[in-house]
């Protein structure tokens, strides 16, 4: 079974700063996908960024980028030039390429951007 661990229950930074959210995972699969989802108070989960395990290049989406360390099973999210609208719960998630068992989520990190 896969596990996803987010060790930071809450983080708070000032607007415009850079913040990094940590995520580690455990799996015996060789083919898998990793995701970061954002959940604002509206409860809707929004995909932030996606990484295929077979790709060595780290994914980037505008102000969001990941540091994917496959050997260490680490998948951190970096948010640059943080904005007030980035305040939300952030969940790291894993799915095996074969699709068994659905997405496995971590417990989340509550990110607060201070004005």
């Amino acid at each position, binding site marked *: 079974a896969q596990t996803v661990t987010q060790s930071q229950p809450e983080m708070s930074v000032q607007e415009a700063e850079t913040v990094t959210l940590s995520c580690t995972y455990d799996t015996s699969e060789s083919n898998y996908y990793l995701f970061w989802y954002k959940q604002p108070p509206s409860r809707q*989960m929004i995909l932030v960024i*996606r990484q295929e395990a077979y790709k060595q290049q780290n994914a980037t989406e505008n102000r969001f980028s990941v540091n994917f360390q496959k050997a260490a099973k680490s998948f951190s999210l970096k948010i640059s030039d943080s904005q007030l609208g980035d305040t939300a719960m952030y969940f790291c998630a894993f*799915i*095996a390429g*074969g699709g068994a068992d*659905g*997405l*496995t*989520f971590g417990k989340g990190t509550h990110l607060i951007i201070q004005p």
Partner: protein
Amino acid sequence: GAGVSQTPSNKVTEKGKYVELRCDPISGHTALYWYRQSLGQGPEFLIYFQGTGAADDSGLPNDRFFAVRPEGSVSTLKIQRTERGDSAVYLCASSLLGRGTGELFFGEGSRLTVL
């Protein structure tokens, strides 16, 4: 519709009652997922449909939980003899390409409170 729609948004019921939660996925999405999110936790996988059939129901906690998708579009999650421990947000997601390969689009969830 433009996004995944879930009804009701909030449901309060008494212990022992029967509850139905509805999910209307994005038009054309063949894959549909149900997740349960307890307070302070990440979403937990319940069941996955590909078309009309339940491809994986390994996440359903017990036989009080059942889900259907008779025409391959709208899905209903049914909970019999509700218990206080069933209180959670129930999230639905749909995907065009199926698990592991495409982005999952989530609804805003149905918050179930069992008194």
